[in-house]
């Protein structure tokens, strides 16, 4: 009396098959669960028993043994309820064998199937292995949206039993769900003045460039940063799925959201919260939740230096390695870094109108928190100046929607070339002579470092894309130089 179902585990944001083996023995009544289950999985026993009863099906009063294989794969969450229940029912011949169908879903005590966090994972496996998958009706659109997946939605355990008794082939699979967008809560039109910072934000959004904003408190750095979401182009479906999988691995449901994620961890966040980790099954950190989106570090200089140094690997490689029992696990973490900082503890260093009151030693310590190598990652560094009282009542700024339109066109040009400009390594030979000369002059006159020259080239490419220009011209480079203010040279 043995049967098996397939389910999903998320390892490093990747879907791996889990075999749910069920055996109904002849001994007296017992329910055993093995295969590295976490607490939530262990508690599945009680939910499964109750749900089966609620569905009006007899739970076998024998020894029930459930094993989740492979045993070395850590399994967590409530998504194994449904495969465990169906496995047991198949083993006790209540339903036909499940064959290869991938099953995920949490069971309520009344037998209803709730959406767990693994629907996307089930869809991915379904597509990869060309097998059907069963998920909660509420999220079946998400699983079905993965190209090649065959997904069936079930509202309750009884539903699932009926479906399997009737045979999967007799029913139409679900249609792909419509991608969702998060509402643009805040609009760039709310920001008055700040022409330079607004432009920097637009260029950053267009090329995916990392942007550092510094300026006195209350100048609107945070307001600006939060509004980047409204001007970024929507994610491709594949990217939205990739991101949702990482969120699932962190135990959060994201759904098929094409709005890029925006994560703003506080500077008191632990290293594990930032880059991922944790005991047992490592979970992705903020850098991975921001995958394909934006990681915003407000008060950058308040983050412990050791935390900031851990950002270097994801910034360079787009993945983050999380140590895990003798080996390490890679989570995707390709994000756009936005950071804001006061120039000094009092906030007025470099302000033309108000003196800085920080002592020299404190000032030096504060500014050295942001290491040179980290500063080097920012393609764009802008000073966000204080807004004069008169500007508060000034005309509204340009709305996000019209900026987003330009950004989207610039992105399209980049994707045609194959990659976004943030990742551009060398120039593609489409620079005018004058543009090259200006870069050389800027480096020669020590306005830029050699590395700064490369960054300026990347940004100039984005500015050209925003203009719809095929070739990078001198004025694109000039603006790029202007957008790369120095952090140290104040």
């Amino acid at each position: 009396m043995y049967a098996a179902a397939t389910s999903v585990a998320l390892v490093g944001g990747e879907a791996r098959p889990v075999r749910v083996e069920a055996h109904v023995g002849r001994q007296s009544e017992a329910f055993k669960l093995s295969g590295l289950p976490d607490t939530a999985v262990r508690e599945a026993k009680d939910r499964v028993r109750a749900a089966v009863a609620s569905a009006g099906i007899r739970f076998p009063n024998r020894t029930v043994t459930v094993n989740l294989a492979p045993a070395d794969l850590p399994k967590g969450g409530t998504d194994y309820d449904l495969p465990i229940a169906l496995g047991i029912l198949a083993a006790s011949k209540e339903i036909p064998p499940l064959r290869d169908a991938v099953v995920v879903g949490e069971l309520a005590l009344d037998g209803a199937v709730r959406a767990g966090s693994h629907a996307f994972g089930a869809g991915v496996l379904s597509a990869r292995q060309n097998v059907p998958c069963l998920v909660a009706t509420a999220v079946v659109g998400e699983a079905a949206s993965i190209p090649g997946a065959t997904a069936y939605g079930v509202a309750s355990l009884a539903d699932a039993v009926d479906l399997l008794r009737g045979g999967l082939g007799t029913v139409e699979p679900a249609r792909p769900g419509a991608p969702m967008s998060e509402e643009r809560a805040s609009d760039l039109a709310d920001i008055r003045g700040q022409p330079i910072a607004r432009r920097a934000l637009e260029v950053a959004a267009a090329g995916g460039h990392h942007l550092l904003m510094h300026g006195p408190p209350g100048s609107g750095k945070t307001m600006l940063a939060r509004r980047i979401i409204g001007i970024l182009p929507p994610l491709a479906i594949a990217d939205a799925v990739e991101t949702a999988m990482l969120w699932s691995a962190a135990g959060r449901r994201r759904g098929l959201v094409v709005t890029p994620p925006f994560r703003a961890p506080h500077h008191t966040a632990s290293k594990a919260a930032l880059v991922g980790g944790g005991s047992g099954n490592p979970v992705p950190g903020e850098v991975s939740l921001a995958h394909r989106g934006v990681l915003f570090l407000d008060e950058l200089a308040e983050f412990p230096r050791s935390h900031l140094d851990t950002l270097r690997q994801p910034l360079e490689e787009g993945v983050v390695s999380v140590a895990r029992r003798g080996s390490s696990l890679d989570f995707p973490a390709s994000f756009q870094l936005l950071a804001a900082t006061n120039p000094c503890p009092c906030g007025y260093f470099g302000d033309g109108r108000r003196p800085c009151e920080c002592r020299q030693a404190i000032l030096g310590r504060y500014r050295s928190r942001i290491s040179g190598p980290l500063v080097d990652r920012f393609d764009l560094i802008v000073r966000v100046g204080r807004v004069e009282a008169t500007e508060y009542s000034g005309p509204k700024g340009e709305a996000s929607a019209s900026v987003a339109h330009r950004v989207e066109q610039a992105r399209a040009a980049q994707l045609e070339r194959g990659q976004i400009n943030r990742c551009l390594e060398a120039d593609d030979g489409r620079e005018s002579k004058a543009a090259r000369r200006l870069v050389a002059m800027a480096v020669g006159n020590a306005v830029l470092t050699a590395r700064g020259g490369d960054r300026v080239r990347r940004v100039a490419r984005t500015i050209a894309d925003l203009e719809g220009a095929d070739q990078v011209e001198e004025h694109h480079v000039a603006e790029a130089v202007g957008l790369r203010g120095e952090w140290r040279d104040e």
Partner: protein
Amino acid sequence: MNDLRVIAPNGPDYPVGLHDLEDPPRLYVLGVTTAAPAVAVVGTRKCTRYGLNLAEAFGHALSRAGWTTVSGLARGIDAAAHRGTLQSQGRAVAILGSGVDVVYPAENTDLYRSILREGGAIMSEYPPGTRPDRWRFPARNRIIAGISSAVVVVEAGVKGGALITARLAAEMGRPVLVVPGDVDRSASVGCNLLIRDGAHPVLGVDDLLAELELILGKPPNQTPVLTGIIPSTGLAMDDLPSIWGCTPAEALARLARMEIAGEARCVGDVVLPGSG
């Protein structure tokens, strides 16, 4: 090249203000003469860095507001005032104590050429070739005072041409505006004396412009605001697009070019002229 002209007191181009002098002299002129009202910015040669910055800012602001500026092409304050004017591509008039073809000091040759190139004028009462003898300079100062509608003294010692210019101007009923300074700084002693005697203390660029407008009215025609020039008092980076009348993108590009050319530098959110 500019043609040398001689303008007699009864000639049509003769500066009206010079008729207030007891002995209106014949003028040798290189460049363009206009009837536009002029403001003199004068000061000592032994000035401070502070004085230089201020003179340059005054020259810049005055010409942007539409005034022609007048000074003596001397070292120090005079040169800085001319320089500030030229930075905003304004009209500068230099009154020499030598012949109009004799540049003294020689270090100001570039400045001399720029004044002519930008549509300003070089004037002197001495015939071409006249050497710059010390005794001629006080006489030159009466022309500066006379030709100007107001005189601004940036820094002046207890003796010196600037103080003479100021007193002559006051005698002719010209407003005298003076920058106050530290009581123990030699370059400001003369200024403070003038203020004690009733000159108007200048508290800054805006104060200067406001006071001039109050006394003399608005300058006749506002010269177009010229772009790409940074006054030594600096500009806020976020103001550049509106000052230069361009998009933020263009402002950034222009600023970067100036930075690369050494004409501007950014300190915090303030843009200052380069080299300094």
